[in-house]
């Protein structure tokens, strides 16, 4: 084998790669992160960071709850304030959505997760700036909140640097180096790097990185927009005002710097073909046109829950690209065809909040080959070489459908799967 430059190479300096790098370094591994642009400049830098811990399954709920513990550790070590515990609300205005909440509360209580029903009056008290007269039910999770993406990145890097992680920015990967049927390194714009293992944490670009190793990673790049209103003396939005999920209107919200972030999971989001974007494409510079249909849709839906928002409201609009998988779950691990080449991608809009635990899982997999976490939902090879998951366009269609249904479908044990 060629001269090693590190134990592990990580492609991608977003939260997935940075968290994995940190956790590997904590186990004494020498790690290099190679990033095409700046650290945190991709999807990470365009994320709202909402943290709702209660998910559809016990495994993913445990992952998120452990993540909060890891974040507390990060905060202690680096002095950054990452987690803002605002609590979170889900609201329902239709019978189907009400059942969703009843199921969720039942599920939460069963695993001792702090969750309770709230009356309309209680919701109104917590969120005076939100429309509540149409609500049939709501639930509140006081231990939820959001992670501040910039602070999260800063703390991963601060601690990682202390432990010797090297970060090579503006250094795009050109090829995966393979010897004897094993990934042994990467060819970057500034030369080759060799290691025992390579991790593909390329976010929306990760399917292209997989292609460099002749692997098919079934992810697709899906657009996402959220707005941030400017602080307005007429509408007080407390810093610790709870985050909201209103799946019926396809929106979520959280406080941000005196204003309100409202984002949307659309039925027909924008689709991106990463290979067609300019080589130096910078997600931070994406900008929506004044007549962008996705922005108009977002404003319309935001207005349904927050009637004081309209197209005249002073706001900034943030456009970004998310990495969706066909089932909305991440891919963590290697494919059978190429040992030493690990994937860590497909977070489907939840990369920020999953990253703390994903880093631990990836470090487990890379250094031990196994993990205590239940991997069944996020195993990298769950669609490997399966018909229907091979060609780019069929993968894209599946991911697009998943993204479009993301807030549309009704969840829970009694749900029929139809959108309300």
């Amino acid at each position, binding site marked *: 084998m060629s001269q090693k430059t590190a134990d592990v190479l990580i492609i991608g300096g977003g939260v997935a790669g940075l968290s994995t790098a940190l956790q590997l370094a904590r186990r004494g591994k020498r790690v290099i992160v190679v990033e095409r642009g700046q650290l945190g400049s991709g999807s990470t830098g365009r994320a709202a960071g909402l943290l709702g811990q209660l998910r559809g399954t016990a495994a993913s709920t445990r992952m998120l709850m452990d993540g909060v513990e890891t974040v507390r550790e990060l905060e202690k070590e680096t002095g950054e304030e990452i987690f803002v515990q605002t609590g979170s609300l889900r609201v329902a205005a239709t019978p189907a959505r009400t059942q969703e909440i009843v199921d969720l509360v039942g599920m939460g209580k069963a695993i001792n997760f702090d969750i309770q029903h709230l009356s309309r009056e209680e919701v109104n008290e917590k969120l005076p700036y939100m429309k509540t007269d149409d609500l049939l039910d709501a639930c509140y999770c006081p231990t939820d909140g959001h992670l501040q993406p910039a602070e999260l990145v800063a703390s991963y890097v601060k601690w990682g640097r202390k432990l010797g992680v090297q970060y090579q920015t503006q250094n795009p990967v050109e090829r995966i180096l393979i010897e004897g049927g094993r990934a042994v390194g990467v060819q970057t714009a500034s030369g080759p790097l060799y290691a025992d293992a390579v991790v593909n944490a390329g976010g929306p670009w990760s399917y292209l990185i997989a292609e460099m190793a002749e692997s098919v990673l079934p992810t697709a790049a899906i657009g996402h927009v959220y707005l941030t209103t400017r602080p307005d003396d007429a509408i007080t939005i407390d810093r610790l005002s709870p985050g909201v999920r209103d799946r019926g209107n396809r929106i979520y919200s959280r406080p941000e710097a005196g204003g309100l972030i409202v984002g949307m999971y659309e039925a027909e989001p924008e689709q991106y073909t990463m290979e067609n974007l*300019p080589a*130096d494409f*910078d997600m931070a*510079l994406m*900008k*929506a*046109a*004044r*007549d*962008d*249909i996705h*922005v*108009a*849709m977002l*404003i*319309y839906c935001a207005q349904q829950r927050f009637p004081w928002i*309209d*197209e*005249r409201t*002073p*706001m900034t*609009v943030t456009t970004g690209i998310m990495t969706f998988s066909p089932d909305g779950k991440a891919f963590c691990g290697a494919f059978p065809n190429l040992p030493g080449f690990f994937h860590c991608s497909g977070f489907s809009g939840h990369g920020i909040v999953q990253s703390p635990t994903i880093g631990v899982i990836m470090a487990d997999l890379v250094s031990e080959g196994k993990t205590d976490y239940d991997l069944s939902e996020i195993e990298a090879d769950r669609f490997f070489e399966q018909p229907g998951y091979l060609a780019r366009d069929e993968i894209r269609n599946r991911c697009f459908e998943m993204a479009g249904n993301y807030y549309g479908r009704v969840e829970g044990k009694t749900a029929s799967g139809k959108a309300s």
Partner: protein
Amino acid sequence: MKILVPTKRVPDTDQRITLREDGRGINDDQLPFVINPFDAIALEEAIRLRETGCDAEILIVGIGSADYEEQLRSGLAMGADRAILVHCEESLDPWNVARILQVLVLREGPDLVLMGKQAVDDDASQVGPFLAALLDWPQATFASKVELSEDAVRVDRETDQGIETIEVTRPAVITTDLRLNEPRYASLPSILKARKKPIEQLQLEALEITLEPRIKIIGLEAPSQSRTCRRVDSVEQLVEALVEVLP
């Protein structure tokens, strides 16, 4: 009442801009284009004047290639009633832009021309004043507040010395400054409506203007990219560092 809003299609200046090899232009084949932000402010102001009660028709004008339609459509979605695109492949200096606009103003007879104080690509800041002079109309530049009265316009002007309030008779040319307003995003219904609004296509020849170029770009130079960064640990150190570099 009729308000004419001339616009310029400019590259989004937040993007990384690189110079062409001949040094006389920029590489714009992959750059996204937008309506000059100051012109978008002018359009927003026209829409707000209409919303606050004056029954105005709003006409936006663009001069350029067929690609301009996309930005004009944006303007129509924000709330303009119709658009004129003057087809012209050449790059024009401010004097000739003003002359073309003069012809359109004489044809359309607006009560008000509202336009950006400058375009963010060349920062020339000349077209508004030229146009007012050619028309022999009063002008109010750098507007940060615009109020209509019976037959005049009251304008707050942002000057280096502070705010100057003036009143100009109509018709007039008003150029808009940054703090006048914040342009809106288009609503769903207005995006749909805009698809049916007319964009009149005019050939430059049809305006019977002979271009008289007076300005030639000799060369462009990119701002220096080299920066010296130094980390300081306290406000005191920062103050010391600043004192060091201040002349």
